[in-house]
């Protein structure tokens, strides 16, 4: 029965030499009985199998009489490996001395191949994960370096700009002609615009580096002077344009007034740039029902539908007025300021009106 059983069967004598091999195993391995009997089992294992047998299986058998499911690789007569799974049992006499060792063997070619594939897949997955981590790391480092560069650059640009501004102010005291005065006014307008761009760039870099825009909040802030000041400045810088204000601010707002001024400046600047120049820009602010609301509207071409979803992304620029475009940071920074205040900035745009609305809780 054992001779043709659907498993290999080998028994070893107490000295470890092969006493019997069944026909099934001989068939698998291609060895003849005469070649195997009297030899050591190790002689028919791969090098790895031999060392494993000597260092693990043989000691284990002495320690406990039997165990199951051990993997060993035998060698066929043609030199090819024969992967096996073995159950092994040691028969002992009363004194615990081994009488024989019996091995039941199952072919494990497919199983071993499957395991190899799993292991290969695991190695590949590990390598891919490592590569992705390294790439992410590199990109984070590069991105941080870029933002540090922007921060330094922005900071360094401020000083020469301040010198130009101071120089223009000095000239303004001494010039005679109206033409020269106009030129100096234009220079100051440009300096203001450029300072605004630099502020935006610095905010972007700081926000990215430190995880958001920092606020200097004041719980009792009355906003009208701050907001009115922004509008006055922009009126001066844009002669010939009408900016109407409707302020209904009877309650204090817990906010950073300089940041809200910066937001308003960005929004009105956009409205002036993109709106119909013959129509007024309207600035409205109110404190009602526990909320502060600020909106800026202009008339003119509506914002194209494709652009609406991306308006608040950094470096997004519409396609109008190429020569007058900024960096595409104004709305991004404004939305970050809104977020830092626990509020939000939204947009609606129709053929009648384009309106940006900021809303936040009062306290």
């Amino acid at each position, binding site marked *: 029965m054992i001779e043709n059983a659907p498993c290999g069967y080998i028994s070893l004598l107490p000295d470890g030499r092969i006493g019997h091999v069944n026909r099934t195993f001989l068939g698998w391995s291609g060895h003849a009985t005469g070649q195997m009997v009297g030899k050591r089992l190790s002689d028919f294992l791969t090098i790895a199998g031999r060392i494993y047998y*000597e260092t693990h299986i043989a*000691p284990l058998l002495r320690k406990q*009489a039997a*165990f199951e499911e051990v993997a060993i690789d035998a060698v066929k007569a043609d030199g090819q490996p024969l992967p096996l799974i073995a159950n092994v049992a040691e028969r002992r006499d009363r004194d615990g001395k081994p009488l024989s060792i019996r091995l039941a063997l199952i072919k494990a070619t497919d199983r071993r191949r499957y395991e190899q594939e799993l292991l290969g897949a695991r190695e590949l997955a590990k390598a891919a994960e490592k590569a992705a981590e390294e790439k992410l790391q590199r990109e984070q480092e590069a991105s941080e370096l870029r933002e540090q560069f922007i921060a330094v650059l922005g900071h360094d640009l401020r000083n020469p700009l301040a010198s130009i501004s101071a120089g223009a102010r000095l000239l303004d005291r001494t010039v005679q002609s109206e033409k020269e005065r106009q030129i100096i006014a234009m220079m100051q307008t440009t300096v203001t615009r450029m300072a605004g761009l630099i502020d935006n760039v610095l905010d972007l870099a700081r926000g990215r580096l430190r995880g958001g825009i920092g606020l200097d909040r004041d719980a009792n802030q009355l906003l009208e002077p701050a907001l009115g000041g922004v509008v006055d400045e922009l009126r001066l810088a844009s002669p010939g344009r009408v900016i109407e204000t409707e302020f209904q601010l009877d309650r204090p707002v817990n906010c950073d007034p300089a940041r809200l001024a910066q937001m308003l400046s960005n929004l009105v600047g956009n409205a002036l740039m993109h709106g119909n120049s013959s129509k007024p820009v309207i600035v409205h602010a109110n404190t009602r029902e526990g909320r502060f609301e600020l909106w800026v509207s202009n008339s003119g071409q509506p914002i194209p539908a494709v652009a609406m979803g991306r308006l608040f992304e950094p470096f997004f620029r519409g396609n109008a007025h190429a020569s007058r475009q900024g960096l595409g940071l104004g709305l991004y920074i404004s939305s970050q300021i809104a977020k830092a205040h626990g509020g939000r900035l939204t947009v609606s745009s129709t053929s009648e009106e384009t309106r940006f609305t900021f809303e936040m809780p009062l306290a």
Partner: protein
Amino acid sequence: MPGIAERNNVHVRGTGETAMMFAHGFGCDQNMWRFVAPAFEEQFRTVLFDHVGAGGSDPRAYDKNKYSSLAGYADDVVEIGRELDLTDAVFVGHSVSSMIGVLAAERAPGMFGKLVLVGPSPRYIDDEGYRGGFTPEQIEELLQFLDSNHMGWSTQMAPVIMGNPDRPELGQELTNSFCRTDPEIAKAFARVTFTSDNRSDLTRLAVPALVLQCSDDIIAGKEVGDFVSRTIPDCRMIVLNATGHCPNLSAPEEVISAMRTFV
């Protein structure tokens, strides 16, 4: 940081004046000495331990760099010896631990007075004028096998308690030792073991040594045992009738009586 006793799962027994330290080889733990060490407990203070990464050692103590050479393991032996204040002790090393003992003896003169080397090999790979028993390709095949078979390593040794209804602790003990060995560590230990070359260390051994050589050992053959006993300045070799690589388990009585002629 655990203490050295916890790190290496050190067990001290016996009452003798002199200490006898037993070190296990690759693939096993201190249980390897279970049939041999008790025979010396009356005459010696026996010290058993597990190398870091094996048996009941603290796996957190495993340091890839430290254990990338046998020197790291020898340092541990010396630390255990210092902790126990060993002088003139007997070191009994099986397989790769024979060489670990040779290195430790050189590092701490006076700690060990005699070395018993069971199945020693200073180099497993053949070299010019030297036969270690394996070609570089065969050792690479082994390491590949271990590399590509580590899934098997962690599961294939799962023991089933059988045939020992009267001694269930055997199975328990096994679950707690072999099976707990981290396959990654086992792989690294195999690499260190089978790629080391300690031939020049043998010539510097300043204390007497006894080589116990098995009759039919495919891991450390007779030729290698001859080389070891020839190269160590003060060395004797006893060839055992026992076959295989683990006479401490398969023929403990023969090992014990051979050791008694020396210690």
